[in-house]
C-alpha cells in the first residue's frame, strides 16, 4: 500500500530508499516497472508521461511492454533463467527485441555479433569474464546477482532499480555486489536502490528517501538523512542499525 508518494530523480543521480519491511519500498519499484498497477498517479520520464492512472491510453498492454524498458529491475532473488548460461541470460532479451527491427533479416549476423560483444563487455564489467559460460546453478549468489545486473544493463534502461540486491546473499558475498553498484554510481548511472545497507546507501546515493507505512517520511541528501535525520520516525529506524 502506497500513499501520496511523490519524488523526482535527476539524470545521473542515485536514490536510495530505506525503511522497514512492509513500508512499501518494493511495491514502489514494482509500480515503476509495471509489475503492479497504481490506482492513482503518474510516472514521467524525460518529460514524457509514460503512465497516468487517470488516462487509459497510457495503459495499453502493447505499449507497456516497450515502456518497461525505461526502467530496469534487479530482483532480490536474482531470477536468472536457469536453462541459460550467464552470457545467454544477458543476451536473450536483447536478441528477442532485435527481431522486431526492420533490418533484422538482412543483418541478423551482425546484430547478434554486436549483442554478444556488448554482453561480454558487460559481464567483464561486473567481474565475470571467466564465468560467462557457466549456468546459474554453478555460480555463487553474489556472482548470480552480478549476472542479473549485467542482464538489466543490457537493455540500456534510463533508470536502473535494485530491490534489496544483497538481502538474499551471505554477508561475505554482499561486498562484490555492492562494489559493482558503486562503480555504476561512479559512472553516473541513474539508479533507485532499495536497501538495508545504511552505510552503503549513505556513501553511494545522492539522495535518500525514508519510507514508513506507505508514506515518504523523510527525503534529503544522503549524508544528511543518515547522519542528521529530522524526523523522529527516521531516528528510531536508524537507531536499530547503530546498535548492531
Amino acid at each position, binding site marked *: 500500500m502506497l500513499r501520496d508518494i511523490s519524488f523526482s530523480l535527476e539524470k545521473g543521480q542515485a536514490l536510495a530508499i530505506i525503511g522497514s519491511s512492509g513500508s512499501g519500498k518494493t511495491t514502489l519499484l514494482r509500480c515503476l516497472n509495471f509489475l503492479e498497477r497504481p490506482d492513482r498517479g503518474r510516472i514521467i520520464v524525460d518529460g514524457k508521461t509514460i503512465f497516468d492512472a487517470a488516462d487509459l491510453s497510457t495503459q495499453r498492454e502493447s505499449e507497456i511492454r516497450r515502456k518497461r524498458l525505461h526502467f530496469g529491475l534487479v530482483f532480490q532473488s536474482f531470477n536468472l533463467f536457469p536453462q541459460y548460461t550467464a552470457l545467454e541470460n544477458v543476451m536473450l532479451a536483447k536478441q*528477442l527485441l532485435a527481431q522486431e527491427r526492420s533490418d533484422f533479416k538482412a543483418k541478423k549476423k551482425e546484430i547478434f555479433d554486436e549483442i554478444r560483444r556488448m554482453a561480454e563487455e558487460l559481464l567483464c564489467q561486473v567481474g565475470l569474464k571467466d564465468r560467462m559460460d557457466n*549456468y546459474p546453478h554453478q555460480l555463487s549468489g553474489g556472482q548470480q546477482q552480478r549476472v542479473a545486473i549485467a542482464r538489466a544493463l543490457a537493455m540500456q534502461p534510463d533508470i536502473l532499480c535494485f530491490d534489496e540486491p544483497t538481502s538474499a546473499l551471505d554477508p561475505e558475498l554482499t561486498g562484490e555486489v555492492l562494489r559493482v553498484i558503486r562503480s555504476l554510481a561512479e559512472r553516473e548511472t541513474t539508479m533507485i536502490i532499495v536497501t538495508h545497507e545504511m552505510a552503503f546507501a549513505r556513501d553511494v546515493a545522492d539522495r535518500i528517501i525514508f519510507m514508513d507505512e506507505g508514506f515518504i517520511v523523510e527525503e534529503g541528501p544522503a549524508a544528511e538523512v543518515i547522519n542528521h535525520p529530522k524526523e523522529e520516525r527516521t531516528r528510531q529506524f536508524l537507531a536499530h542499525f547503530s546498535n548492531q
Partner: protein
Amino acid sequence: MSFSTVNLMLAQSFLLNCQIFFVTLILALPLGLVLSFGSMSRFRPLSLLSRLYIYLMRSTPLMLQLAIIYYLPGFLSSGQYMLSRMTAACLAFVLNYAAYFSEIFRGGIQGVPRGQQEAGQVLGMTKGQIFRKITLLQVIKRIVPPIGNEIITLIKDTSLANFIMVKEIIAMAKDFGNRAMIWPLFYTGVFFLIFNGVVTLLLNRTEQKLSYFR
C-alpha cells in the same frame, strides 16, 4: 500349437495395444495442455468447466468410460450410430489421459517461480516469448518424471480395451486359455516388460539431457 505361432499371434494383438498407446499419447498430450490452460484461466466459467471435466474423468473407472463411449451412442440412437471398437477405445483413452496430463501440466507450470515470468516482463519480453523461451523448458524438466509414470501406466491400461471386446493381447491370451493353454497369458508379461524397458530408457535419457540446469 507351436511357440512361434502363439508368439506371432500375441505379437499381432499387441499391435492393437501399441496403436491405442500411440494415438493416446499423440492426442492426449496437446489436449491436456489445452485443458490445463483452461483450468488455470481467469475466466471463471472456462476454469470451472475444465475442472469439472477433469473431476469426471479422474473420478470414474476408465472401464466404465470405455463402456459409455462404446455403448451409449448406439443405445441413444437405437443402434443407428456406433463407433468401431478401436475408435471408441482410443477416444476413451485420449479423453481420460488428457485429464491426468492436464493436472501434471498445471502443476509443472505453476511450479515455475513467479519471478521467472517477472524477470522476462521487465526485460520487455512478450507473453509468448516468456512462455516459449523461459517457462516451457523449465516446465518440461519438471513434468518428465510424472508424465513418465503415466506413460508407463498407459501401455498397461490399454488392456482394459478388452472390456469392449478389442482383441488386444490379454484378450488373445485368454482365448488360448479357453483352449486349455494357460502359459500364453503369463507370457504376455514379457511384451509389457520389453515395451516399458524401452520407454524407461528413453525417459532416463530425456531426464539426463535436461540435467544441465536446475
